[in-house]
């Protein structure tokens, strides 16, 4: 099997910030999608925020997920069903996190053109360097988008604040051949 990774688009949030970043008109010629995210929001008070992800502008109750989050001293697992978005990961937030630090995450979406329901695998870390927030948090999350429609657009929104300048989203197409 050979695997080909094609950079599709990269966007960096400008000085005004942005509430939502959306990739539209995603080519339907790959087998899987990969997104690399480096994000920070202007959420007040806290060191972290949550980034939520929706597909095709669909905010119906068609998302579910299982979470495993750890901060170095404790771990939390949770399950959310029939919700209106996939909560992908934490983002670093202005309220308490160390200046100029951004979260890092990867989201993998296999078989995004399929007429079956779509899976999402997301892993992420934030490094806040703030002891009261556990310094760093790692997340591993599995999601399901219960829609038979091919994915043609993906959006990310900060729950607690706008995405800061320099937040970056890079989309790649994965082409699996010979399988």
């Amino acid at each position, binding site marked *: 099997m050979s695997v080909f990774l094609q950079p599709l688009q990269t966007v960096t949030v*400008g000085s005004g910030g*942005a509430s939502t970043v959306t990739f539209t008109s995603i080519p339907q010629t790959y087998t899987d999608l990969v997104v690399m995210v480096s994000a920070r929001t202007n959420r007040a008070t806290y060191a972290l925020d949550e980034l939520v992800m929706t597909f095709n502008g669909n905010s119906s109750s068609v998302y579910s997920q299982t979470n495993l989050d750890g901060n170095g001293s404790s771990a939390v697992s949770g399950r959310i069903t029939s919700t209106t978005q996939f909560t992908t990961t934490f983002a670093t937030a202005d309220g308490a996190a160390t200046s100029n630090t951004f979260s890092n995450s990867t989201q993998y979406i296999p078989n995004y053109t399929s007429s079956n329901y779509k899976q999402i695998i997301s892993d992420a870390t934030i490094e806040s360097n703030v002891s009261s927030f556990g310094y760093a948090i790692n997340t591993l999350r599995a999601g399901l988008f219960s829609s038979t429609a091919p994915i043609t657009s993906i959006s990310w929104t900060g729950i607690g604040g706008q995405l800061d300048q320099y937040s970056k989203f890079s989309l790649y197409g994965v082409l699996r051949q010979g399988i």
Partner: protein
Amino acid sequence: MSDTPTVLEIDCTTGVQTERPMTADEIAAQKAQADAFAAQQAAQAEADAAKAAAAASAADKLAKLGLTPEEIAALKG
């Protein structure tokens, strides 16, 4: 930061990036997302509190039966 919520759109076919104000429907959808997330968090916090209360109650009952703190801790694994 702008006070007006904005959407940064990237057309993956043309590469064109567009920044525009959110529509009223999008603002409503964003608020619904935030509300849904807050509700999830509240439900999780309530479940965690109930679990902690049950564990404390169980430990108290075990102590009254004569188990030592070490034995109760061992039962918790």
